[in-house]
């Protein structure tokens, strides 16, 4: 963009609650506890959408660039398409209470790369209560893993109960940690009602096919 181009917010007086009608890319938040596979899911979705969607990624690691560096090393996405946001020891604040740094990062991506189809916002690893503001994302995915214990869906919390999609990762580890997938499925249904839950093992399904299809369906509905 020309350096003298004046940048103004497209709609400076917009109601913050109307973020679902923002003009840019469709935004999907990916949250969940530390080590559950959020970054692995982002990498899998980058592989799945390569050549199909104009993609951007914003990471919110507690250590500034750890997740962003992982994605760059994995070679799944052009480093230009990845932004890291500092969260000042409070990853949940950056995605829920004060979303300004994440909004700025998304706008920077859109300014530098032009129109995007999809932006994935990965939260820093947090706890079961961390959820995204509707002012930041259009939909959110909460990622837990089988190795974290099959009681997690029963414990609930806003992430498990209210996320638009619950992903239960590392199903391949279930026999090794004595986790009962049927218990997790039953508890997830009890907690989430009609909201969808997907079981997968990103270690085996390198493109997280079912999650990618869920996002494709949302995008088709948008357009």
């Amino acid at each position, binding site marked *: 963009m020309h350096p003298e181009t004046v940048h103004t917010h497209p709609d400076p007086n917009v109601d913050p609650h109307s973020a679902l009608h923002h003009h840019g890319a469709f935004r999907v938040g990916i949250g969940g506890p530390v080590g559950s596979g959020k970054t692995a899911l982002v990498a899998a979705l980058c592989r799945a959408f390569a050549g199909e969607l104009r993609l951007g990624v914003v990471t919110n690691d507690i*250590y500034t660039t750890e997740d962003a560096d992982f994605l760059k090393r994995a070679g799944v996405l052009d480093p230009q398409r990845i932004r890291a946001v500092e969260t000042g020891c409070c990853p949940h604040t950056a995605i829920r209470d004060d979303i300004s740094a994440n909004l*700025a990062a998304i706008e920077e991506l859109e300014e530098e790369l032009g129109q995007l189809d999809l932006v994935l916002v990965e939260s820093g690893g947090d706890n079961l209560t961390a959820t995204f503001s509707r002012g930041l994302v259009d939909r959110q995915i909460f990622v837990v893993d089988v190795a974290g214990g099959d009681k997690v869906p029963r414990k609930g919390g806003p992430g498990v109960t209210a996320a638009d999609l619950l992903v239960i990762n590392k199903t391949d580890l279930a026999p090794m940690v004595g986790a009962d997938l049927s218990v997790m499925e039953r508890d997830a249904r009890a907690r989430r009602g009609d909201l969808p839950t997907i079981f997968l093992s990103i270690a085996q399904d390198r493109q997280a096919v079912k999650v990618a299809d869920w996002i494709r369906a949302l995008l088709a509905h948008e357009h």
Partner: protein
Amino acid sequence: MTSALLLLADGRFPAGGHAHSSGLEAAVAAGRVSSLSTLESFLLGRLYTTGLVTAAFAAASHHAAAHPATSTAAAHPAAQGAAAAHLATPSGAVEGGSVPRLGDMECAAGSEVLLQLDEELEARMASPATRVASRKQGAALLRAAKMVWPGDGYGLLPQRRDGVHHAVVLGVTAAAAGLSCAEAALIACYSQVTGQASAALRLLGFSPYDIQRLLAQLAGQCDAVAMAATAHAGKDPAELPMFSSPLADISAELHATWEVRLFAS
């Protein structure tokens, strides 16, 4: 004293402040802040340097937004014309801080002063990393302010893709919120001290009661610095205070190169 003052000063106001330690993280890593007494020294040192400077710029920016014609009279031909226009229509200015309806000439004068304040503040920040952090926080505050207190006053701010300095946006925001010049300066001082103290709490695991007691002890000095800063409102921007701390500038530059950091500044 208004609720709007408390709202804008609240650490929960979504303007990106939580991700900034304003030099505290670098000072902790260097071992310069490790106890309550070294934290107190750090907070006071920064309060009387960058705190006073940013508060003076917040007060001056408030003045430029709320009384654009009088803040510039000596500095600019355009402003002198605006000042004359202002004198012809004294109803243009409102005491107590709310932004009056402005004529074209007054707007031009206010814009000119705010641009000059932004440049003067830039010149007072030796560290490029500090400049970037200040502009990022200014952009974040402006985003929130426009939604929380909508108004025309923000149009006086310079148009910059990388954001206007935080203290300048703070002054204009305080005016839009109906706050006074002194309250703009107070928020600048208070936010700096409490933001750094909050970062110390998170990084060093102090008791929250100890941190709050320390902040209570510093409250009088925070008020005094804010009051001193307020006296600079309406002055030629080039004459505003220019205190700095070289060690803070060097630390900020080093901090920006760290591979692993928890805070943006």
